[in-house]
C-alpha cells in the first residue's frame, strides 16, 4: 500500500506571553491509502494539535519548527496558501468532536452546509447554483442516514438531537468526497448507543467510498472497531506504533500497558464483583414521579414527565448504580433524593423519615452530599482549595483551629499533599480537581454521597485512580454511594447493585453479575451491546439485539 499522508518529524511549539511550549516532538506517522489509523493518547498529549497541523488550522501562536506533512508526496507546509486551502474539505476533511459547539447557534444547519460547499466549489473553480448545491447536500445527508434532509437544513443546531448533529458533522466532511477523513473523537459527547451507531456509520462510509481514516481518540474500545494500525502518543511524542492486534495483545511500552489496563472489563476473568450490602435500607423510594410543567402567559401549558413511578431501595454501605442515557431521568431522581426538588408524587424516605420533612434542615444537608461530573466547572475558579473546603465546614458549625485540622485531614483522605490548601483550581489537573470535589463532599461527614458521573470528564488512567479512592473511602468511612453514570463497563465493576432507566422509568434492576450475564429487558441488552470493549472475547459475550428492539428503543438513530 502506498502512503496517502505522511507526517515526517513534525515539531510544533506554542508561544504565549514570551513562553515557548514544545507540544509536538518529532512526530512521524503514516496513513496508507485506504488504511484506518488511530492516534490515541490522553488529554494534552498532542493528538488534536497533530490533526490541526495536518488541516492547517493551528492557532496563531503556534509555530511549526521543523518537519514535513506530505500528502501524496507533496509537502503541504511548503504550499502557497491558496493551494493549501484548496485541499481543505476536498483532499482531507475533519469530523468535529462536539456536535453542539461545532455549529454556530444563530445560523441554520443548511447555511453551514451550503457555505462549506460553495467556497469549496469556488476554490475548485466550479460554478454552482443554489438549487444544484441543495440537491447535492440533500444527497449527502441521506448518505449519513438523515431521512428528512429538508427539515434538517431548515433547523437551527439546537433543534436537532446530538446524534443528528453528529451526522450532519459527518455529512459536512463528506460534501466533496475527500480522500482522508480525520475523526477527532467523534461521538464521545454522545450516549453510548448513539456513539455506537455513529462508529458503524463512519466505518461503513470509509469502506464504501474507499477513504483513509485517521481516528483521534482516547477510547481504546472505539479503536478496536475503527482502526487497523495504532499510534500511541504521550507528552507530544509518539511512544509506540504498530498493528492493532499487536498493541492490544503485546504492548511494548509500560504507558500503553497502563492505558489498556485502566479500562474496566465488561466480561471475563478480570471483572470485579462487589459484595452485595446486607445493611438496612437507608434510602427508600416508593412510586415516585416528577412532572415538569411550564406555565405560559396564555395558551396551554406543557407537561414533561421526567420520572415516572420509580421505586427503589438503597441499603446502607451499598454502591447503587443508576444507569441510563441522557434525559432518562437519573439526575432528577438524585435531585429528589437530595431534597433539591420536590417529587410530584410518591414517597421518598431517608433513614425512615420522609425527605419532605427533613429537606432544608442542616442535619439533612449534612447527611447527603454530591460530587458533580465536571470538576472544572463545579469548583469556583477564584477560590483556593482551602477556601472551597471551608464553606461546608462553616455550615457544619466548625470554627478556628478545628477547621484547619479538618481540612488537613480531608486532604489526607483524598491523597492530596497539605500545601494544596493554597492552590487554585487552574493549578490542578482534572483528577486532582475531582479529589478536591470529593473532599468537599466529605467535609460535612455525610452518610450518603451522590456521584453524578464523577469520572466521565477524566482520562481512563485518572478514572481508575479516582474509583480506587472512592472504593477506599467507602470502606474507611462506611459511606453509601448513589452512582449515576452511563458508563456500563465501569458500573459493572464498581457497583454492588444497578438499575437501568429508560424515559423516566426503571426497566431493570439487580446485581451487576446477573444484569450483565442475563439481561432481561431488550433496552438493557441494546445498551450493553453498544459498550465499546477492547477484546474479541468480550465482544462475543455481549447480548444479542434484534433489529426490531434496536428500532424500538434506540430512536435517535435515523430520525
Amino acid at each position: 500500500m502506498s502512503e496517502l499522508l505522511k507526517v515526517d518529524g513534525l515539531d510544533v511549539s506554542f508561544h504565549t506571553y514570551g513562553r515557548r511550549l514544545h507540544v509536538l516532538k518529532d512526530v512521524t506517522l503514516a496513513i496508507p491509502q485506504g488504511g484506518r489509523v488511530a492516534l490515541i493518547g490522553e488529554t494534552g498529549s498532542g493528538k488534536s494539535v497533530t490533526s490541526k497541523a495536518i488541516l492547517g488550522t493551528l492557532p496563531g501562536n503556534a509555530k511549526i519548527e521543523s518537519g514535513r506533512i506530505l500528502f501524496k508526496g507533496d509537502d503541504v507546509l511548503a504550499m502557497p496558501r491558496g493551494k493549501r486551502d484548496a485541499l481543505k474539505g476536498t483532499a482531507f476533511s475533519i469530523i468535529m468532536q462536539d456536535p453542539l459547539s461545532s455549529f454556530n447557534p444563530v445560523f441554520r444547519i443548511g447555511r453551514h452546509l451550503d457555505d462549506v460547499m460553495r467556497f469549496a466549489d469556488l476554490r475548485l473553480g466550479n460554478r454552482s447554483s443554489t438549487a444544484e448545491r441543495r440537491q447535492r447536500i440533500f444527497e449527502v445527508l441521506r448518505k449519513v442516514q438523515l431521512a428528512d434532509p429538508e427539515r434538517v437544513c431548515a433547523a437551527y443546531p439546537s433543534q436537532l438531537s446530538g446524534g443528528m448533529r453528529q451526522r450532519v458533522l459527518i455529512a459536512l466532511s463528506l460534501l466533496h468526497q475527500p480522500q482522508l477523513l480525520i475523526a477527532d473523537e467523534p461521538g464521545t459527547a454522545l450516549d453510548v448507543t448513539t456513539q455506537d451507531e455513529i462508529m458503524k456509520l463512519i466505518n461503513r462510509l470509509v469502506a464504501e467510498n474507499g477513504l483513509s481514516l485517521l481516528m483521534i481518540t482516547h477510547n481504546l474500545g472505539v479503536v478496536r472497531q475503527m482502526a487497523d494500525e495504532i499510534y500511541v502518543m504521550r507528552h507530544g511524542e509518539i511512544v509506540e506504533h504498530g498493528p492493532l492486534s499487536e498493541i492490544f495483545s503485546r504492548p511494548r511500552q509500560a504507558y500503553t500497558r497502563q492505558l489498556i489496563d485502566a479500562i474496566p472489563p465488561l466480561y471475563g476473568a478480570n471483572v470485579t464483583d462487589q459484595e452485595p450490602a446486607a445493611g438496612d435500607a437507608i434510602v427508600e423510594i416508593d412510586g415516585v414521579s416528577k412532572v415538569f410543567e411550564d406555565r405560559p402567559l396564555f395558551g396551554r401549558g406543557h407537561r414533561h414527565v421526567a420520572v415516572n413511578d420509580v421505586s427503589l431501595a438503597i441499603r446502607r454501605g451499598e454502591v447503587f448504580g443508576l444507569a441510563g442515557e441522557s434525559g432518562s431521568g437519573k439526575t432528577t431522581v438524585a435531585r429528589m433524593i437530595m431534597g433539591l426538588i420536590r417529587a410530584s408524587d410518591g414517597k421518598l424516605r431517608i433513614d425512615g423519615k420522609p425527605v419532605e420533612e427533613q429537606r432544608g434542615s442542616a442535619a439533612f444537608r449534612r447527611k447527603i452530599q454530591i460530587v458533580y461530573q465536571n470538576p472544572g466547572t463545579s469548583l469556583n475558579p477564584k477560590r483556593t482549595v482551602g477556601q472551597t473546603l471551608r464553606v461546608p465546614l462553616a455550615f457544619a458549625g466548625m470554627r478556628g483551629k478545628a477547621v484547619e485540622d479538618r481540612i488537613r485531614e480531608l486532604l489526607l483522605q483524598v491523597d492530596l499533599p497539605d500545601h494544596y490548601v493554597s492552590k487554585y483550581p487552574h493549578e490542578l489537573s482534572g483528577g486532582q480537581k475531582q479529589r478536591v470535589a470529593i473532599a468537599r463532599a466529605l467535609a460535612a461527614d455525610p452518610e450518603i454521597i451522590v456521584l453524578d458521573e464523577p469520572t466521565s470528564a477524566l482520562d481512563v488512567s485518572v478514572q481508575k485512580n479516582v474509583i480506587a479512592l472512592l472504593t477506599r473511602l467507602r470502606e474507611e468511612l462506611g459511606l453509601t454511594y448513589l452512582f449515576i453514570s452511563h458508563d456500563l463497563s465501569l458500573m459493572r465493576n464498581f457497583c454492588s447493585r444497578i438499575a437501568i432507566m429508560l424515559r423516566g422509568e426503571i426497566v431493570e434492576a439487580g446485581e451487576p453479575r446477573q444484569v450483565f450475564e442475563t439481561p432481561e429487558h431488550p433496552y438493557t441488552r441494546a445498551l450493553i451491546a453498544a459498550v465499546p470493549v477492547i477484546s474479541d472475547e468480550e465482544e462475543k459475550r455481549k447480548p444479542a439485539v434484534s433489529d426490531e428492539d434496536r428500532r424500538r428503543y434506540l430512536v435517535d438513530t435515523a430520525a
Partner: protein
Amino acid sequence: MTGASMQENYLQTFAKRIAGFIGVLFVLSLMIFVLARVVPGDPARIALGPSATQEQVDAMRLAMGLDEPVIKQYFAYIWNALHGDLGRSLISSRPVTREIAALLPATLELVIVTIVIMTLVAIPLGVVTARYRNSWIDNTGRFFSIVGVTMPSFLFAILLQLFAAYFLTDWPIIGRINHGLSPPVGPTGLLLVDSLVHGRLDVFTDAFQRVLFPALALAMSGIGQITRITRSAMIEHQRRDHVLTLQSFGVPDRVIVFSYLLKLSSIAPLTIMGLEFASLIGNAFVVELVFSWGGFASYGLEAILQKDLNAVMAVVLISGLFFIVANIVIDLILLVIDPRLRLKETN
C-alpha cells in the same frame, strides 16, 4: 433517546415581553406620581404665583382635584393619561401633551441620528479591534472608547462647538434649522424625512449639518461602550469550535468574521444599546441646551427648574415610554437574530 424537539414561538415570547413592559410603565407612573405629590411646593401655589391670595389658591386646589385622596388622584391621572391628557402646564396653563407634541419630533430626530451614528461607528470598530487585538489599532480604539465613556457628553458638545467655530466657520451649529429656508411641514415632523418627502435638498443639507454635531456628542459614550462589548463578544466567540469547523473546511476568514461571528456577536451590544437609551435621554437634556436644540429634553429641563410638576411628570412618563418602546424594538430584533430566544422546548 430522542432529542427534545424545539419549536419556534415568536408570538408567545413577544407577548410576554410586552406584558412585562406594561408593568414597568405602570410602576414608573406610580413612582413619579407619588414623588410629585411629596415634593415640597403646592402645585396650585406654583400655578398662581406668589401674589395670589389664599382663597384663590384654595379655589385652584379644588379645581385641580388636589383635595381628593392621593390614590383617587392617581387613578384619575392614569385615566386621563390613557385618553391623551396629561394635565395643563402650571406655568403656561396650556395642555402639556400639546406642548410636548410640538417638541417631540426634534428630540426624536436627534436620538435616531445618534443611534445610527452609534451603530455605524461602534460595531465595525468593535469588529476591527477584535480582529487586530493588542495591535496599535486596538490600543487606539481602546483609548477612544475610554475617553468616550468617561467624558460627559456636554463636554463633548462644547468641544465640538468650539471645533466647529474655529475650523468650520460656515457650518451651522446652533438650532435645528435655518428658519429662513421655510422648512416644509409634515408628515412626520422629522426634518430629515420631511425635507426628502418634499424634495427640498437645501433643507435636508441644513438640517443634517445641524444635527450632526449634537448627535455626535450624544453618541460618544455609547460608541465607547458598544465598541468594547462588540470587541469582547467577537473575541470570546472566535475561540469557539464552530469557527474552527468553518476554518477546517476553508470557508474564507472574511465570511467567518463578517457573517457568522458578527451576527452572533451583535446580540450583546444590541442588548446594551437598549439600556443605553436611558442615559441617552438624560444626556439629551444637557446637549440640547448647549446646541439650543429646542426639543423635548430642553422642555423637561425648563419644567424641572420652574417646578412645573405636571410637565415634569409628563416628561418622565414619555421618556419612560421612549425607553420601553426602544427596548421592545430591540427585543424584536434580537428575536429575529437569535433563534434560541424563540425556540421553546417541547416533546
